[in-house]
C-alpha cells in the first residue's frame, strides 16, 4: 500500500515564505486575486504566527491528507475522496460547491475559489502532475532550510520514513480522530 504524507520541521523552518509563494506560482498561476476565505494569497499553505508566548513560534498549515478525513465523509457527491495513494483529492466534475467540506475540516485547510465555485486545497494540479512523474510537490522542492519532506510512509526506505524515525514529531488535532498525515517535527 502507498500512504503519501507530508513532513514539516518546525525546528528548521526559517519562515522564508518560499513554499507559500511557490504554491501560488505553480498551482494558481501566480494569481494576484485575493483568497477571501483566509484573507491571504491564493495558495494552499497558511502561516500562523504565535506571538504571545515566551519565544516566537510558527505553524505552517495545509491539507493534512487525513486517513479519516471528515471532508470526504460529508461530501454529498463523492467529489472529495481519498485516492489510492492516500492523498485527499477533489473531483471538480462532481463538486457542486456546497462547501460542507470546508465547514467540516477542523484544520480549515480548504479555501474557496470563486471562479470555479468550489473549494481548493493542497495539492494543486501542478503538484499532482509533478508527483505523478516522481518529482516532489513544489513546496518541498523549494524549501532552502531542509524543513519539508514528502513521501510514502509505507516505504521504510523513503526519505520521509527515515526522517520520522530520527525525529520527534507531533500531529495537529490528533484527538479529533482525523489521523492526519502532516507530521510536525519539533526536534531530533
Amino acid at each position: 500500500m502507498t500512504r503519501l504524507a507530508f513532513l514539516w520541521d518546525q525546528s528548521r523552518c526559517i519562515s522564508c515564505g518560499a513554499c507559500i509563494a511557490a504554491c501560488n506560482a505553480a498551482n494558481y498561476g501566480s494569481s494576484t486575486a485575493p483568497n477571501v476565505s483566509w484573507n491571504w494569497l491564493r495558495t494552499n499553505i497558511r502561516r500562523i504566527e504565535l506571538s504571545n508566548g515566551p519565544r516566537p513560534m510558527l505553524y505552517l498549515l495545509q491539507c493534512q491528507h487525513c486517513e479519516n478525513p471528515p471532508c470526504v465523509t460529508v461530501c454529498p457527491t463523492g467529489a472529495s475522496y481519498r485516492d489510492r495513494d492516500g492523498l485527499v483529492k477533489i473531483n471538480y466534475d462532481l463538486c457542486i460547491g456546497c462547501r460542507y467540506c470546508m465547514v467540516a475540516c477542523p484544520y480549515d485547510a480548504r479555501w474557496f475559489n470563486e471562479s470555479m465555485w468550489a473549494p481548493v486545497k493542497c495539492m494543486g494540479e501542478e503538484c499532482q502532475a509533478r508527483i505523478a512523474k516522481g518529482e516532489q510537490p513544489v513546496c518541498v522542492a523549494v524549501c532552502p532550510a531542509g524543513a519539508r519532506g514528502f513521501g510514502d510512509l509505507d516505504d521504510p526506505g523513503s526519505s520521509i520514513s527515515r526522517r520520522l524515525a530520527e525525529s520527534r514529531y507531533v500531529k495537529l488535532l490528533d484527538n479529533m480522530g482525523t489521523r492526519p498525515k502532516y507530521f510536525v517535527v519539533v526536534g531530533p
Partner: protein
Amino acid sequence: MRRRLALASAAALLIAGAVLAWMGYAGRSAEEIPWGLLVPGYVFFALMATGSSIVNSIYTVFGYRGPNGEYEKIIKLGVWFSLITIVPAWIMILLDLRSPLSATNIFIHTQGGLSLFFQYRSGITWMATLYALFALTLLVELVYFIRSEASERLRSMKSAELAIALAVLVVTVVLDSNLGQVFGNVAAVPAWYGPHMALYFIASAIVIGATGQALFISAFAGGLGVREFVARYYSRILMIGLPVLAFIKGWMAISAWYNPASWEAYSLILSSPNFYIFEIGLLLLVPFLLATFAYYKRSLAMALLAAALVVVAGFVDKYDLIIEPQTAHISYSLGGWAGVGSIHYAPAPSQMEIAIGSVLAYAALLVLGVLLLPLKPGERPRTLYIFK
C-alpha cells in the same frame, strides 16, 4: 377584475423576485466564511415550512379540529403554506451551488457512463432525499385535500388520509432533525457539535412554522370567521413552544461554557447586543408574554404581533447560530493557541439580492396559490384537476 389585477401583480412580483435573485446569482463572489447569509436563509424557510407542517399534524394526524371545527376551514391554506414555504429555501440553496442543476450530482453521476450514487454518510445527501420526500408527501396531501372537496370517495378514505398525514409528519420531523444534525455532526465546529441541534431545530421549526403560518392565515381569518381560533391556537403553541425552545437554548449555552472551544463561538454570540434584543427579548420573552395575553384576552392583534416578532427574531437566532461559530473556526480549532482572530462577516449585496428575490418570489407564489387553487372552505377544483 380585482382577481385579474391580483393575478397580474403576483405574476409581476414573481418575475421581479426571479430577476433580483438572478442578478444576485450573476454577481456573486467568495465570502469570508463557507456558509454565508443564504444558508441561514435557507434554514429559516426550511424550518418554517416543516414546522408549519408539524403544527398542522395536530389536525391531520391527531384529529384536533378546534372548538368549533375552525381548523377544518383553514387546513388547506395551512398545507399550501407549508408546501410553498420550502420554495424560497430551495431557491436560496440552489443558487448558492456551482449551478442550480449541479445538485443532481448528489444522486446521478454521468462520468464514465450513467450511474446512481448515494453517500449515506453525508447529511446533505439526506437533506436532498428528505426534501424530495417532503415535497412529495405534502403535495400528495394537498392534492388529497383539494380533491376531497370534489370527491366523496376520497373524503371517506380516512385511513388513507391518516397514512398520508403520518408520512408527512414523519418526514418533517426526520427532516428537521437531520437539518439540525447537518450542523450538529460537524466535530470541527465545537459550538455546533452534539445531538442537541436536532432537538433545537425541531423546537425552532414548530415555533417559526406556527408563527409564519399564523401571519399568512390571519389574512383570511376575518373572512372565514376564525379570528378567535387563530388568536388562541397559535398563541397556545407559542406558550408551550417558546419555553421548550428557551430550555434547549439555555442548556446549549451552558454546555458551551464548559468547552472553551465552543465558548469562543458562543461568547461572540453572547457579547452582541443583538443576542439580548432578538434572541432573548423578541424571540422568547416578549412573544411569550404577548401570546399569553393574546390567549386569555382572545386578541388576534397581540397574537400576530407575537408571531411577527418570532418570525424576525427566529431568523436572527438562526443567523447568529450558523454564522458566528464559523467566524471563530480557526482560532480555536488548532488548539487555542493559534490566535488568528475572528473573521468579520457581512453579507454581500449579491447574497442579499438572492435572498430578497427569493422572498419576493415566495410571496408571489403564496398569493398565486390562493388565487388559483381552491384553498378556502367551499372552493372546489374545477379546472385541471386541482385548480379553481
